[in-house]
């Protein structure tokens, strides 16, 4: 059993099946990347894994605790084992960067203010943002906001970090910086990374294991080399970014002529 064990997760929204029996295991100290196109079920899977959404069936065992059946008190304990880097950072806009990083430390420990200050400086130095400690999130660029959010995510030295689209909206240099930081979290701090992304290039730079989600199901799973050698047309299309192939972007439901005639 790995650090995270996802078993047969199923989730529907009305008649739409978002996740259909997804299972995988995330090993400790590795970077696990969940790839997929928009609407493929990646974000829903992340929300279920962090306990923000309930699955219809299945389980997510995180370091021995089943997130899907845990009550709020159990979730509060298990959530201290992981940090989350949200797509837009989700830093509290009314607090400075330093205060954002200090918040979980102050809330969950009884450390003196001076020690908290030192810890905040250390976390910000790790992501290269010590000079931005007194700035508000609104004064930061997109990349800086994500790095500040990463500093907050590692404030309590978690076992796992979840990343929701860490490279979205960033320029290539900022994307490379974030990818480097994700690698550093694994190699220098021994953390387990779970990354949700659709960015193939950064995914292959950081991943130990890759899962490709398509229409709520796992279409492919393996190491970067295995995924690159995969001959499945769907996997090939996703890797090459081709507009034609089994990953159809246009809606094919319903009859086009009937739609026109029923106007």
């Amino acid at each position: 059993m790995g650090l995270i064990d996802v078993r047969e997760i199923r989730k529907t929204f009305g008649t739409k099946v978002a996740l259909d029996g997804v299972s995988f295991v995330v090993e400790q100290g590795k970077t696990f990347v969940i790839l997929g196109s928009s609407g493929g079920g990646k974000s829903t899977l992340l929300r279920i894994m962090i306990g923000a959404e309930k699955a219809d069936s299945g389980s997510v065992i995180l370091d021995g605790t089943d997130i899907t059946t845990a009550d709020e008190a159990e979730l509060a304990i298990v959530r201290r084992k992981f940090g989350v880097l949200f797509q837009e950072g989700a830093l509290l806009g009314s607090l400075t960067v330093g205060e954002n990083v200090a918040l979980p430390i102050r809330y969950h420990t009884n450390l003196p203010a001076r020690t908290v200050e030192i810890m905040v400086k250390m976390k910000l130095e790790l992501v290269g943002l010590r000079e931005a400690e007194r700035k508000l999130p609104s004064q930061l660029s997109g990349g800086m906001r994500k790095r500040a959010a990463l500093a907050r995510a590692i404030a309590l030295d978690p076992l796992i970090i979840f990343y929701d689209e860490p490279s979205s909206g960033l320029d290539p240099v900022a994307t490379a910086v974030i990818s480097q930081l994700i690698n550093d979290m694994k190699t220098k701090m021994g953390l387990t990374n779970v990354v949700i992304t659709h960015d193939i290039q950064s995914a292959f730079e950081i991943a130990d294991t890759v899962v490709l989600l398509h229409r709520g199901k796992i279409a492919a799973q393996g190491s970067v080399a295995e995924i690159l050698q995969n001959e499945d047309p769907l996997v090939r299309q996703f890797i090459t970014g081709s507009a034609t192939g089994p990953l159809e972007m246009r809606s094919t439901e319903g009859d086009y002529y009937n739609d026109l005639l029923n106007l």
Partner: protein
Amino acid sequence: MFGERFEDLTRSLRSFFENAGGMVHLLLDTMFWTFVAPFRRKTEHRRLTFPLMEAIGNKSFGIVALVAFLIGVILVIQTGYILERYGQVRQVSGLVAVTMTRELGPLMTAIVLVARVGAAFTAGLGTMQISDEVLALRTMSINPVGYLVAPRLIAILIMTPCLTIFANVVGIAGGCAMGLTFGLDPYAYIDDSISFLQLQDLISGVAKSVLFAVVICIVSCHMAFKVEGGPEGLARNTMLSVVTQLVLLIVVDGVMAAFIQAVT
């Protein structure tokens, strides 16, 4: 046709009961995080409450003063000439004092706070909801009700009665100023106001203001946490929040008026 209307009605009823249940649940949760949790675990109430008190109270004094003063003036304008016809214009001071302390002081202060504070609570927390900040708090094992709602409730519970008492005084001053145009002596006006007023008038007004504060805080925060669908959803919920607060203020006011009448 009938089927559609029935469906609309059941949807509206379901939404009404869901919101009512959600607000009661939030109220109980907030009471726990406000009055019980600080004795059991670490909270950020002290650090968060004072800036909120300043935002709710200090920054509302000007607009509350303006509204209360004008209400005092209007009461004298509207009633003074009738009382003057019967040679009873001196009674206007008592009328203004009792109306302000029992009814208009608390109600007008609450209406100002709905516009200034309730709308800001819904818009501010609603923005946090759609930008995942509320979820981020949860993932840090920080209860959003404890961190966001409880300090707001404490701040508004302290500041609303203060603003209400201030509005009462300014309203009476407004009546006094307008009374000059009817030839009333300001000293006699103040003396009459004080002699008319009873302690229960003041207490019932302040008690109402406490309930109004709870209504404003709980409704605005509930509607904020229910925001979904981006900026459009935020705008819709802010509007709904203000309307719900206003309607509930009048309902609570009516219930309190009947209750006070029954017990006195």
